[in-house]
């Protein structure tokens, strides 16, 4: 719980989510701790609920859990992730709109290439079954993805690792956006 509260603050401080957007979760056995809908990531005290990770077993607290609770469930079911962070950082969202769903953003900088390899762009409405399916499939092979026109999902074996991925996606997208822009200007 405390870990999610700590990283919720870091996500907002680093500009990886704004206002009431973004959500965080951590798997504990066959349950997950997840932030509530409408909560602010930098004020998560008392705003985290525990629900089942089984997609076949919806929980009453789903109603007040993040609207993306089904996406988190699908990712936990499809992958070995133990933590998932979701943010709406600027360059990741901008880059996702320059790509088509199914395409891969290939980072330019060495660190991002090393950490992320590439970043799939997926499609799906907020909290939709389509997004749950696409995000879970893409995260089987990758640690971070961007949802077109929406934001980033990052997974990790720890909350800290998921945070590294979340910030790396934004860093990779920022560098790539600037490099691509500079190339166009110099041509």
């Amino acid at each position: 719980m405390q870990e999610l509260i700590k990283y919720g603050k870091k996500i907002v401080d680093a500009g990886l989510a704004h206002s009431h957007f973004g959500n965080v979760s951590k798997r504990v056995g066959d349950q997950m701790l997840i932030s509530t809908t409408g909560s602010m990531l930098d004020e998560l005290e008392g705003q985290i609920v525990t629900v089942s990770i089984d997609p076949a077993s919806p929980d009453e607290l789903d109603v007040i859990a993040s609207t993306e609770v089904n996406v988190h469930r699908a990712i936990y079911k499809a992958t070995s992730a133990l933590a998932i962070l979701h943010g709406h950082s600027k360059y990741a969202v901008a880059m996702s709109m320059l790509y088509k769903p199914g395409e891969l953003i290939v980072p330019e900088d060495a660190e991002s290439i090393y950490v992320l390899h590439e970043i799939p762009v997926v499609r799906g409405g907020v909290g939709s079954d389509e997004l749950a399916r696409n995000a879970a499939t893409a995260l089987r092979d990758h640690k971070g993805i961007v949802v077109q026109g929406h934001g980033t999902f990052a997974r990790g074996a720890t909350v800290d690792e998921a945070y590294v991925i979340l910030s790396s996606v934004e860093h990779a997208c920022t560098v790539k956006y600037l490099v691509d822009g500079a190339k166009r200007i110099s041509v």
Partner: protein
Amino acid sequence: MKAVYGWKNKILRIDLSKGEVDSFAPEASLLRGYIGGRGLGAKIVYNAGQVDAFSPANLLVFAAGPLTGTTTPASGRVSLSTKSPLTGTIFDSNCGGSFGPELKKAGYDALIIAGKSQERVFIEIEDDKVDIRPAEKLWGKNVKETTSLLKNKGSVACIGRAGEKQVLLAAIMSDAVHAFGRGGVGAVMGSKNLKAVVVKGTGHVDIFDRAEFLKQKKLISRLLIASPTISKGLSVFGTPFLMKITSWMRILPVANFRKVEPDFNLSPFFAKSIVEQWSPQRRACYSCPIACKREDKEGNELPEYETIGLMSANIQNPDYSAVVEANRLCNDYGLDTISVAGVLGCYSEIRNKGISPAELLRFTRMIGEKEGMGEQLGWGAKLFSASECSPEKSIQVKGLELPAYDPRGVKGLGFSYATSNRGGCHTRAYLVAPEILRKPKAIDPYTLAGKAGHTKIFQDRFAAVDSLVVCKFAFFGVGEEEYANVLSAVTGVDYTSEDLMLVGERIWNVERVYNLREGFSKDDDTLPERFFEKKVDGRVIDREEFLKTRDEYYRMRGWTENGVPTERALKRLGI
């Protein structure tokens, strides 16, 4: 004659004292300015002047709205207005089922029942044919039996033995399982020697712009499905999904609002356990895709959240099946479950003991039969506690027992109990939506800051919604904009969402002026003392802050510092 859309432009009036039936066309300004349902009922009851709740002059006004009888999603509800014998306030009660649509299809926007019959009677309406018929053979029967004897004649709204005996907690039951609950409205019906109203309509409701109506209806249906509160909560579990949430938030009242932590395991009362143990089937009111009602495999109704919350932890009963049975008994006697549970909570505190499952059933029967201790319990928590010299143990506002949310943990909701025109009720402002379910936008439940404004806006909003008449639950997914559009398409009268808010404000002020005329004052806009004095879970309502919020609320309403609407405010609202 100019064509009328949405409304039927006809109100049926029955005087039971004289045995007379007539109808009239209401003024266009009445329908436009108050829409229907609760608004129309409030204006008619207000215009009838000061009456005693049990005098023949008290009216029962069943009122549909312009959307009733159309296929607008969640528009199958109907409103009943009267003066409450429990609270002494103006009172409206909102009910599902199919009574409203049948009334509308029979050709009426509203049915006004005045007077008192010498004989025991029921009313039978089939379109233009209206009969007052003897009910001697029905008298003494409870709701299920009465309904099954009459249901081949149409949709039945009737009282059980509790209403006949004028128990102050009596409800009127529609189609056996839907309640015109709260406020003792069933006792008013009993006082008129009226056992039932049966209505059947073969007509339809004319729609001004069908293409636009269908477009708006489709949009509303889409928004309803997209709402997580509906798609993950109400449609999956029914209202009991709230049990786990209120328990997680530590606002589920325990031991007559003295604690928030029960001494027993609550999980059998949670919706998921109920699904596993009882395999509930979904049931819906007329034209409602949400279908939040639940029944067991035999088709018997299962209790709603408020009933479960108050008949379990709040009276210290650990047995869910006893709640199911007590709920059925209440429905059959025609009793309001919240008030029955509220008075039993009060009794248990006064006697300093929990209510066992067997006692819950025994006391419910005794209240319904008005016998033994049941007679005093049937007065409601306020009078019962006063008779026991323990008024501080009644958890009520203006005589109406509180629902299952401790106001110390949902302070806006608590403030809305205090300022409610019908007493301690969660549905007037329905701040359950933003403070508990975080819709349409989450607001901090633990503070009173900003709640004067929220309360006013939500009170006005739902006064308008109750006048359309549309189920409040639809507003988890849809806003007044969409319903203003559908209202315009149905009636041909151009309504904006701000127009709806203004109608809501007008209704709220009419109700307020009624209550002031009855002698209510600022002092009644308060909460039971324990919420200011005793902490639960580290929370209490700060009295100073509460009083400041109340002052701010009066100012926002354009009322004097004593909570009296000014001439100017009333003029602005056209009252």
